[in-house]
């Protein structure tokens, strides 16, 4: 028998008027007002969304992640309106897929990142007149890890955060730009006046250092 884990079957309808505590998300707060929460606290909130349709938990997730997703998408060159729509879509996906989120497998930040990344890919493909009929391989990247990888993934976020802090600044910058620049290699090459091939070997070097800091010493 195949047991299929359903996302939250019937999302409860939100009340028409938002309760007072949700004003926190409907107003623009200056940077830094969101509480720094541990990875486990975010996991508990996603659980609360999945199990109870907890709107307060969802509001906290929204307040923290939606503006950062919008920022990420704009830095990758999407127009503000599109970035706004996709950031909202990311949060709709977060609610709908909350029940299938596996905290042993990925941190909430990792999960949100992959949702936003995949929505951006789909958007670019639609724009290129290549409609995507369904979730393709990109959406499957995070499924079906074996037990070893799960143990690895569970500690991943904290370790990766530390490793990024330990990287040489220029290497951290290369990695950051690989995620946040539209044309990272070409632009780095132009700015530093070095050949594209050299940029690519710097990227590989940065990833290898990151891996070593994470205990992966394979070539």
């Amino acid at each position, binding site marked *: 028998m*195949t047991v*299929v*884990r359903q996302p939250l079957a019937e*999302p409860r309808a*939100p009340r028409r008027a*938002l309760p007072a505590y*949700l004003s926190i998300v*409907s*107003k*623009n707060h200056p940077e830094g007002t969101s509480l720094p929460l541990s990875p486990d606290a975010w996991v508990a909130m996603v659980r609360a969304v999945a199990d109870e349709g907890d709107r307060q938990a969802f*509001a906290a997730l*929204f307040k*923290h992640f*939606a*503006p*950062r997703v*919008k*920022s990420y998408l*704009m830095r990758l060159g999407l127009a503000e309106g599109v970035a706004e729509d996709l950031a*909202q879509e990311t949060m*709709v996906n977060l609610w*709908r897929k909350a029940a299938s989120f596996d905290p042993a497998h*990925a941190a*909430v*930040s*990792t999960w*949100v990142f992959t949702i*936003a*990344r*995949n929505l951006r890919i789909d958007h670019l*493909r639609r724009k290129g007149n*290549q*409609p*995507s*009929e*369904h*979730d*393709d*391989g*990109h959406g*499957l*990247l995070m499924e079906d*890890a*074996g037990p*070893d*990888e799960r143990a*690895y993934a569970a500690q*991943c*976020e904290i370790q*990766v*955060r530390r490793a990024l802090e330990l990287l040489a600044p220029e290497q951290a910058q290369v*990695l950051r730009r*690989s*995620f*946040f620049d539209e044309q990272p290699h070409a632009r780095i090459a132009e700015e530093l006046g070095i050949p594209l091939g050299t940029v*690519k070997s710097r*990227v*590989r070097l940065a*990833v290898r250092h990151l*891996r070593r800091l994470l205990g992966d010493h394979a070539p």
Partner: protein
Amino acid sequence: MTISHHPRDDVLLDLAAGRLAAGPALLASVHARTCPQCGARLRALEAAGGVLLESSPPQPLRADAFARVMERIAAPAVHGAAQAALPPLAVGRSPADPGTAETGRPDWPEGAPWPAGLDGCRFGPWKWIAPGMRWSRLLAPPEAAANVFLLRIGPGRSLPSHTHGGVEWTQVLHGRFHDGHALFGPGDFDAADGSIHHQPVVQGTDDCICLAAVDGRLRFDGLLARLAGSLVGL
């Protein structure tokens, strides 16, 4: 299964960052599903993406953004987004199953599992190119269909070089070949640019099945001509 040929770090980084073209992205994600080492590396890089996302400066949303999201959540999922995340129910779905047209899976060697990373993909039936050589066209996902295909080559036969210039990507799904330098078996990944000229030969008694991708858009009539041409030494 020992996997000895992996995507380079920059390929995995591009995959994690969402900037790899659809064809190579499909191959690299199939590899990462098969290879525990690359799967862990990919997840670490995705975790880096998450950490960097969290450290990016927030960009305020519209004042009504939260209300709009809650409205959409209350509405039925018109695009079927929730359903799309579920694994396809490919096995034993109906008694009147299958056949390639129905399953999207061409005839596969006895006892060999269908690669997990290809669950969401549909292929056409095997088509004859030349003696001992068949190919199957990727039908879906459509964004990768233009430049990804399966090649099935018989024992002792040579794999053709299917591009002139550009990068050609290969993920071995079944069987083995030797390219004159190294042996490639199930799970192995190869990205060769057009400057490398080797003549891979299928080893052992099994067919060798590879998922292949080429950079850019590929015209399939051109592909067939080149595949056949490479066999007769053109």
